[in-house]
Every structure is written in C-alpha cells, then in structure tokens.
C-alpha cells in the first residue's frame, strides 16, 4: 500500500514536470530550424558553408530563423550525441550532417525524413550521379539523405623519406609484401621514423575500418558481407590475414607506436607534424588530405605539392584489379521529427546547390558528386591529386549497406586494437569478432 502511494507521488511529480516541459515555447519552434553538424579543429569547411548559407537563406525566407548548432567532437562522439538528441522531439535537429554508413541504421531508428517527394520537385537532383543517389537510399527504396561529396582512399607517401631510404620513385607497391619490404627498408634507414601507418584501434573510430582494416580486407579473396545472400561472412581467411598484416606492422615497430596510435588525435600529428617534418614514410589516407595542407587549411604546408606522392593501395597479392579503395562520404538529412520539414529541405537544397557544393568540395577536398561541379575547371584545378583519386572510383568499394553495419564496424575496431596491442592473436581476435557478429545479426544472417 505504501509502495503504491509512492508510485502515485512519482506519477504526480512526473506529470508536473512534463507539463512544465510542455510550456516551453514550442509555438515559435516551427519558425526556427536547427542545423546540427560536426566541427573540429581540423574540420571547419562545413561550418564555413553553413555560416555563409544562413544569412542567404534567412533573406530568402523571411520569418524563418536558422540556428546553427555545431557539435565539437570526434566522429564517434558526434554520432552518439546526435543519436541522443534524436531521442526527444525537443532536441531533435531539423537538418543534420550524417555519415553515409549510418543512414540505413538511423532510418530504421526513425530519425530521418523520407525525402522522395521533396527530391521529385528539386531540379538539381538530376545533377547527382547514380552512386550518390544510392548513398542516401534505405532498405525501403526511398531516399533519406543527400551526399555532400564522396571520397576514395589510397597511399600517401613522403618522397624525401623514401628517397633517403633508397626506395625507387614513384613508389607503386603491387602487394602487401612489397609494402612491408619498403617499410622495413625505411625502418632500417631511419629507425625513429614511422615507416607505414594503417589506422587501427577503437580511438580512431570508423577511420580504423576505412583507412585501415577495410583497405586490407577488400583486397583479399574474401569479403566482409555477402551482398547477394545478404549475409555476414565469418571465419574467413582474409579476415585473419588482414589482422595478421596489422599485427606484423605494429609488432615490428613499422607503424606508429601503439600508445601513439591509440590516441584519437594521431591524425592531427600525422598531417600537422609527421609529413611536413619528414617523420613518416607513408600512410593510408583519404582523398581529402590536401584540405589540411592547402592554403587556409589547418596545417598549411604549401610544399606538399612537391614532397607528397600518391599510389593506389594494392590487393593482397596483386590479384583482381591489383588495387583497392574504399568510399564513404557524408550527407545532409532532414529530421523525421522536424516541425518545419519544407523549410528544412529548402535549407538543405540551398546548401547543396551548384555554387555551394563547388565551394565545399574544393574547401574540403571532396570528390564531387554533382556532374556540373565535377566538370568545373575550378574544381579540377583545386589540388594536384584530385584526378588520381577521382580515378580510384573505378576500383572502389562501398561499405555493406545494412543497418547493422555501425555496430559491426565497432567490433572490427575492437579486433584491430586487440591485435595491435598484442592482447590477442589474429585468430583469436577473428574468433571474437565472429562471435560478436552472430550476437548482433543472429545465426541466420551469417555465412561461413
């Protein structure tokens, strides 16, 4: 009896609290659209874009206020914070910056608005290439997000460091073994330099998969996900081999010291100190790298044009196309709980129009997804590597487009960390991964 009285009390107080919450100025909210996006020390291009679009949009739409809410966090924390904001209509954003690999998962969670009707009336939509149109499509066949640009990945190397180690330039490794040989040569010539970096471990987040494990895995004879059968692959030789490559790289001291690599901000050192200072021979990195070094970038280094070389990342033994790349990219999406979806979409459309997309793709060294931007001379001349990385699109892979991917990606990151720190052998880490994948998708969605 006493317990029920307490419960009644709880109910009363909660109801009062809810009533108070309901009194917040909800009426005005429909005239305000909130834009949530990531902003970091090294990533301000999107902030600059929105700062520019905000006054233009407000001038074109009298009565509508745009509220910019940048989240200063790394990608993992940004995703967590965004997901938490989505839990309540009070905090859910109207327009937000969303990684392509989270689109399907977040559509399933009911966070994204179906954009089909809006896109049908948007004449710019036909400028987007087919890959870009797919990036925002969910399992139900509708489009929920519009890409800002895409990217590819390859090897970035320091010509001066490789020359000093006696490596012939241009360096074009044809197999994993050749990468290891070159890395060992660099290590022998200058033991205090980083010979070759492959991102690994949980702190680097999705980068450990995209600029790390994934580049290895997609160059083996196996695959992570069988798209035809729609099943996740466990127990594959390629998975163990990929982990073994990481183990060799870190175990022999060719990669950055594990304690440095496990600092989530290592990429800042890599761009800001290691390459300009000639302390690293090579790394897997994305097509966006010049955005840091170019004039106005976070780590300005004009000499990169002459000192940096690029190469395609080879498959395990040079099989298949001989090279491999991964593509991702980010999108803008409209919140499913938006009070004013029309204004929100108009903002999205304005931020992605020809002029703004061109400016953003150049500022952030993105690979353009709009045909009219891709053929613009200003885009093509923006940095000397853009042609090379645009060509890598022919060998690129996209991540498994399933709602489970973000969770499975986190498990891959954990596996790479266990191997790089020597806590597990590649076989053990692969077995732990297999078990985790079965736990996430269930026995019936897994194949050997």
């Amino acid at each position, binding site marked *: 009896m006493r317990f029920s009285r*307490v419960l009644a*009390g*709880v109910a009363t*107080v*909660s109801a009062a609290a809810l009533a108070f919450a309901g009194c917040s100025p909800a009426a005005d909210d429909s005239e305000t659209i909130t834009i949530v996006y990531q902003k970091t020390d090294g990533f301000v291009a999107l902030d600059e874009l929105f700062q520019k679009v905000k006054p233009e949009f407000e001038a074109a739409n009298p009565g509508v206020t745009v509220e910019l809410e940048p989240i200063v966090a790394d990608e*993992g924390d940004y995703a*967590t914070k965004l*997901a*938490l904001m989505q839990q309540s209509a009070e905090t859910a954003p109207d327009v937000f910056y969303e990684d392509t690999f*989270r689109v399907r*998962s*977040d559509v*399933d*969670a*009911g*966070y994204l608005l179906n954009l089909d009707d809006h896109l049908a009336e948007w004449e710019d939509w036909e400028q987007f290439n087919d890959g870009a149109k797919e990036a925002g499509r969910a399992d139900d066949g509708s489009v929920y997000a519009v890409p800002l640009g895409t990217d590819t990945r390859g090897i970035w190397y320091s010509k001066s460091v490789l020359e000093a180690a006696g490596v012939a330039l241009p360096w074009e490794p044809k197999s994993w073994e050749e990468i290891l040989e070159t890395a060992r040569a660099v290590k022998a010539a200058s033991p205090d330099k980083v010979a070759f970096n492959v991102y690994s*471990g*949980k*702190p680097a987040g999705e980068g450990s998969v995209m600029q790390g494990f994934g580049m290895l895995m997609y160059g083996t004879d196996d695959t992570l996900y069988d798209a035809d059968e729609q099943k996740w692959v466990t127990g594959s030789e390629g998975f163990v081999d990929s982990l073994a490559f990481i183990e060799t790289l870190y175990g022999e001291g060719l990669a950055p010291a*594990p*304690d440095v690599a*496990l600092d*989530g901000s290592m990429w800042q050192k890599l761009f800001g100190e290691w390459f300009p200072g000639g302390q690293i021979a090579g790394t897997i990195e994305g097509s966006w790298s010049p955005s840091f070094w170019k004039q106005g970038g976070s780590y300005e280094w004009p000499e990169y044009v002459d000192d940096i070389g690029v190469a395609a990342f080879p498959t395990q033994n040079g099989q298949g196309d001989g090279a491999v790349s991964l593509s991702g990219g980010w999108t803008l999406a409209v919140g499913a709980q938006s009070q004013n979806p029309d204004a929100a979409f108009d903002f999205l459309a304005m931020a992605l129009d020809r002029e703004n997309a061109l400016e953003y793709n150049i500022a952030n060294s993105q690979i353009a997804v709009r045909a009219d931007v891709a053929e613009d001379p200003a885009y093509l001349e923006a940095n000397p590597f853009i042609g090379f990385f645009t060509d890598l699109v022919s060998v690129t892979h996209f991540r498994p487009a399933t*709602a*489970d991917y*973000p*969770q499975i990606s*986190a*498990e891959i990151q954990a596996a790479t*960390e*266990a191997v790089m*720190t020597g*806590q597990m052998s590649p076989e053990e880490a692969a077995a*732990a991964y297999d078990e985790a994948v079965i*736990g996430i998708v269930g026995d019936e969605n897994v194949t050997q």
Partner: protein
Amino acid sequence: MVASTSALRDGAVRPSRERPNSRDGRSSRTSIARFLPVVPSILLLALFMAGPVIWSVTISFTNTALTGRNAKDPSWVGFENYTRLLQDPGFPVSVWLTVVFVVASAVIGQNVLGLVIALLLGRVGRVTHAIVTTIVVGAWVLPEIVAAFAAYAYFADDGTLNQLLAGIGIDGANWLYEFPMLAVILANVWRGTAFSMMVYEAALNDVPPEITEAAVIDGAGGLKRLIWVTIPMIRGSIATNLMLITLQTLAVFTLIWVMTKGGPGISSTTLPILAYQEAFKFQEIGYGSAIAVVMILIGAVFSVLYLRTLRPGRDA
C-alpha cells in the same frame, strides 16, 4: 539504498524500544504526523534516484539501442543481456579490474593514507597543518574533469612525471600505456585521499583525551593505542568512510576515461567504462544498462558487508 534503510531502522526501531506503548492508535497518528516532514524528500529520492534505477533495470531486459530498428521498437528480451554478459570474455576481466581499482585505490590507498595523514596532522603545528591540508584538499576541490586532465598531463609519455625522472637521468615508462591500472589507481588515491583524511580528522577529534591518557598510563605504546583504543573508538567513522569511498570509486568514470579511455585494449576497462562503451560506442543501451545493474548489485554487496562487520555499537 541500504544506507537509508539502516537510517530508517535507527530512527524507527530505537524510539519504539524506549516507548513500549507506541502501538496504540493515538501515537500511530502522531507517527504519521511525524512522517510528514520527510515526505518531500522521499518523493524527491523516488523521482531522482529510484526512478533512474527502475528505468535502467527495466531497460536492461530489453534490446533498446541508439540506432537501428531496436531504437524505434525495442522489444523485451528477458535475461538475454545478462546471459550474454556472462559469456562475454571481457566481462570477468572488467569485474576483476573494478575490484582491483576499488580495493587498491579506495580501501587501501585513500582509506589508509587518509587515516595516516589524519593521525600525523594531530601532532604537527598549525602552519604545517594548514600547508598539508591545503595540498591534500587541493586535489579534492578540483572539478573531476580538471583533476583527470591534470593526472593525464602528469602521467603522459611526455608528461610531468617523465620530465622529472629525466631530470635525474631515469628514462620513465609510458605509464598510461604500459601500466594503465597503476596510473589510474595512483591518480584516484591522489584525488580522493582528502575526503578520508577529513572524515578521520573529525573522528579523531571526538576521541576523548582521557581514554588515550588512561591507555598511556596503562603502558600502551603508540601502535597498541592505535589498534586497541583509537580504531575501535572510530569504528563507525571507518565504516561510513569505507562505504562512501567504495561507492564513489566504483562509479569513477571521468578520471579513467580521460586518462586511458579504458585502454590500451581493455587493460583499464572497469565496469563504468564497459557500460559506457556498450551503451554509447556500440550503441546498445539495453546491454549497457545490464552492466550498470550489475554495478548496483556489487555496490550493494560492499555496503551490506561494511554495515554487518563495522556497525557501531555491535560487539565484534
């Protein structure tokens, strides 16, 4: 929770023992009236403490997630999260690390160091007393995030400690990477000792000087006096202190997260870190809540243990 039941028992049982006629109607009305002033605080406790606890217990039986279909329509999965937790090879490691962290940094580190400092402070002059207290309490008044960052800067590879060691020609280890548990334990001792010290200082001030003097006359030396007179006299404070610092230390998150993020690998992943990782990195709120519930249980076990063994006024 356990603390409040014992407080209720002390408040309710003892007076009734003194007044055997308290069971008639008139005084039961009085006791309801007496109960009224605490109603608001019980309501607040229910709202802000029991509420979240009930919520996390409930959610731990579902597959609630931050993304994917389980974010929209979570379903009831019974004990699945708990069975999965028991099969998780990382879980026993995490429990062990939590126990090591609590025992080494709180039960031994903060508790013993706090008592020793409090005892020594009783014998020094006012100036020394003020200086030592300021230094010790300094770590405690810092906001947790600031203290955590200070500890990180101290133990980092190119941090203060290794620079000091380099000054005397020693090439220090990379503490946060090679000895992550040692680093976070020392950091927690540094941060938390002030609390135990202040509790014990207050308790020692309450030990009547006549009793200590009597022991001296009986010929008891310093150590004997401590073991046979002082410690039994402050047993209640020891129990309270142990319980508070144990529960505090069980919940330490910011300090470890800032210093090591639970790594390398899982080498410093205590239960709060594990719960956070599962809930917010792997986005499985339900599974993370199951870990949180296990933490509540561990805390309850510790509390009951302290209350049983060290309750004041109970013969050992």
